[in-house]
């Protein structure tokens, strides 16, 4: 997409912009999290990223019990007996309760932003990108689920001369990839499982699209790093990790793989959204096991790090 077609007023739903990110691409980066994802991975640490539409998150700990929300809600959706405080069936997302919640117990997940607004935020750390060899990473959710917005945003980043990275599940179309890849310097591609049956069972979709798109990305010549979220009992067996590493190696353009150990950092956010945490009872992989998997990946001819770069 040539930059002269840049539409600064294009809009997308963003749920977070995180500055000083140092593990998702080279140098000091700003991460833009786009809302909406085709997958429903049960270990997802950003549950607020899954749905495309805005949501309300209730952080009980912040509530001071002033009950202002109760008084301003026009649709009677506030229920103090509910742990998650909001009755979703009644809530119209008017945002009046959030306005009066000074203590920050009620919060919006996801805001509609223009490319221009996001770029203005990204510009604030321009000096750090330059000094560190960093840049911008689009993450999600699945950033390419908002393909037009993502494309415009990447074009805007390129117009500013920034290094761009996308962190993707690979669940998108070849058409979208071909539009976006010329604006991308690095792709971080998630590969969750090589066995399609298991993939379907846990994630809800076949992995064929991911594998096909991996080859499309490889064909474009854009630098790519494969990332594997290591989930005990799902994909942390030696066979799967070896076959993932072999697949990555076979792509020709991949020489690095990141093993991202499962963590429960997002668990609290399920409560905020009034949802059940689907992976109750699983503990993060041991350091010893991670090291073992790392050696295995390296034996397949790839560089490997635990955690992002």
């Amino acid at each position, binding site marked *: 997409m040539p930059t002269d077609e840049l539409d600064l007023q294009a809009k997308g739903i963003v749920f977070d912009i995180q500055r000083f990110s140092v593990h998702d691409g080279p*140098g000091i980066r700003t991460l833009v999290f786009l809302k909406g994802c085709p997958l429903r991975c049960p270990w997802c640490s950003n549950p607020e990223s899954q749905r495309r539409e805005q949501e309300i998150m209730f952080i009980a700990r912040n509530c001071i019990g002033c009950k202002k929300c109760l008084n301003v809600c026009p649709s009677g959706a506030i229920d103090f007996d509910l742990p998650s405080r909001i009755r979703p069936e009644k809530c119209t997302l008017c945002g009046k309760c959030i306005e009066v919640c000074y*203590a920050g117990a009620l919060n919006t997940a996801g805001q509609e932003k223009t490319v221009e607004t996001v770029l203005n935020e990204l510009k604030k750390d321009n*000096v*750090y990108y330059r000094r560190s060899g960093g840049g911008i990473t689009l993450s999600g959710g699945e950033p390419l689920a908002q393909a037009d917005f993502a494309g415009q945003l990447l074009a805007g980043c390129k117009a500013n001369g920034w290094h761009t990275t996308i962190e993707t599940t690979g669940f998108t179309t070849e058409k979208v990839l071909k539009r976006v890849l010329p604006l991308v310097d690095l792709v971080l591609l998630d590969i969750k499982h090589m066995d399609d049956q298991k993939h379907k069972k846990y994630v809800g979709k076949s992995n064929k699209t991911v594998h096909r798109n991996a080859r499309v990305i490889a064909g474009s010549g854009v630098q790519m790093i494969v990332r594997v979220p290591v989930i005990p009992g799902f994909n942390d067996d030696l066979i799967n990790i070896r076959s993932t590493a072999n697949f990555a190696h076979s792509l020709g353009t991949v020489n690095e793989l990141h093993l*991202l150990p499962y963590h429960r*950092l997002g668990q609290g956010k399920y409560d905020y959204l009034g949802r059940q945490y689907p992976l109750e009872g699983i503990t993060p992989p041991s350091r010893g096991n991670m090291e073992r998997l790392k050696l295995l990946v390296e034996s397949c001819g790839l560089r490997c790090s635990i955690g992002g770069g």
Partner: protein
Amino acid sequence: MAVSKKEIDSVSPRIEKLIEGLLSVVPEVESERAVLITKSFKETESMPIIIRRAKALEKILSEMTVVIRDEELVVGNLTANPRGTQIFPEFSNKWLLAEFETLAKRKGDVFLISEQTKQELREAFQYWDGRTVNELAEQYMFPETREAIGAGVFTVGNYFFNGVGHISVDYAKVMSIGYNGIIAEAEAEKAKSDTSDPDYIKKNQFLTAVIITAKAAITYAIRFASKARELAKSCQDSRRRDELLNIAENCEWVPANPARSFYEALQSFWFVQAIIQLESNGHSISPMRFDQYMYPYYQQDITGGKITREKAQELLDCLWVKFNDVNKVRDEGSTKAFGGYPMFQNLIVGGQTADGVDATNEMSFMCLEATEHTKLPQPSLSIRVWNKTPDSLLLKAGEVSRLGLGMPAYYSDEVIIPALAGRGVTLRDARDYGIIGCVEPQKGGKTEGWHDAAFFNTAKVMEITINNGTVNGKQIGPQTGEFTSFKSFEEFMNAYSKQMEYFVSLLINADNSVDLSHGERAPLPFLSSMVEDCIGKGKSLQEGGAHYNFTGPQGVGVANVGDSLAAIKKLVFDDKAVSAKELKSALDSNFAGKEDLRQMLLNRAPKFGNDNDEVDNLAREGALIYCREVEKYTNPRRGQFQPGLYPVSANVPMGAGTGATPDGRQQGVALADGVSPVSGRDMAGPTAAVNSVSKLDHHIASNGTLFNQKFHPSAMEGESGLWNLAALVRSYFDQKGLHVQFNVVSREKLLDAQKNPDKYRNLVVRVAGYSAHFTSLDKSIQDDIIARTEHIF
């Protein structure tokens, strides 16, 4: 980390033993110096003060116990026991008398004191009744000034009760010409003086005093030589015997004569450093550009094959331990502002030369390694950074930062050099700056900077403005209007400026009273002999002998004032979300029953540290109102007042004395430290905090600004972590920040964060590919992370 680990492992057993000897004892108060100076002063009643001071030092250096500690290679003690403290009754002593019984029992900075010491000190103190610097200064102050101090608007406590210190002398000069050279210089100056000059008598007395103290310094060293020979005689171990004989040879030659080797230069340096701290108890005696003046000696020995790098490093490590042998007892109140036995001997590496060429050398790296080896709080290690600083030095500094010692502190040449030039320092001198104490820049060996002149509570002035010039109902400032009467935000700002104008004028009165008293009662001839132009002018530092003279009082509470101004502007005047009356009443009651209003103040007005121009500009303006007032004034040494924006740890006691503020801060809670955002209110990550802080005017705060950043070790992991840290430093300095230091957060901190989550709301933890605010996590996950942190280091 592999490289630095290897180096840590290579610390010699000697250094380990020296450190163990230092840390295994509880510091103790010693009476020897107090007794000797009192005796001397009784003997010299009829003489001019400058001679009396010189003779007192002569007596101390000739008679005090000299000790050579086991295994040490660089000698020169201040106290018989390691980390002990001498007493300086001539500055003040009544507080100590009152605290004799609690010194060993207090919560921090504990000192033992024996019954015999107490008795000897009581006797000595009697002589000083009415004769101290403190008592004279108090008489010089206006009653209004004392009232403002009493109300907690500012404190000049440090120099009011203690020596001034805060200086760097010309160490290189002593190394290159020796005290014999200084004596010759003083003699020559005497010889060429015009006896008909009306200042002749005073000048001549000063030069005589310089000669007395220089000779006394030589005598002191010779006593160590004798001591070493005596010990060598009875030493069974031939290795140690040779070392003692080597020490004896060193002390027979330096500091009287020019140093001939790296080892002699180190020994000469330490005698200077030690004797300065026996003459006066002013802290922050800062070695400054040690890598610059030591390097020629090192290079000469290395090229001449006289020393190996390993041996030189061990000598350096020995000296580093020695820096921690110096201590100082403070009153209990002051320990809250200066907690943890700090001595602030600031040593800085890197930067540029007076000619504007990069100054990094092998010694710069060796100094960083000495800190890596000893892991002790002294010296306060700093690094100068400019555009031409090699990455290798910055990466090495990052490795040291990663140890979690909070050192080195990073300073920007690109801000400090023009800031000093703006204060009348020549370009060459400005390029040759170093750092005093915490963060105060000056040209060493030429400046009496009086850098730690006061802590001034700008948040208190805000509180007083809201209360129309009153504190607890008592009118102590001008009446600038009831808070409810202001029609616009600008009217409120004008009132704040007027209160500031008034209280800064009292601050000046306090500082100048203390300044004058030091000149009259405690001029320091030994210290003065090593600072340009004292010998030439024939004047002590305390009377204006230095080439450059300044007074630097610190503003505290920058972020609280900025946040408060933003809250008042937005919520009272712009949005009219709360009335002035309602806000005032909530502040008066410390938000009792008004938690929702407090939450509004906290979360509905922008906060400094999040890269938001609206509030950042108000923080800038709030700080400027203080800075512009301060720089209007002149001190008795005819130097300019220059503001700083750093608190040491005074933000804690000052917060304790400040009522609730419109930023949502409750009564008594600590103020923000230095120019850092209020703890926990910078929520947008380190780059946003850095950007906010860099929007302040760091040039006008030429006495120094202080910016603390906390990091979890995982943010600095690996090779890329070091590069990112280096990039962060360079980016802050690109944006004209002056100083930054990194606290790499330890396990202990995380545990504390669990107990006090409000203090750590901004602490971001990183565990494999995902970041989160630590306090937002469930306890079990926090426990996971705490357990894992230990893997990282």
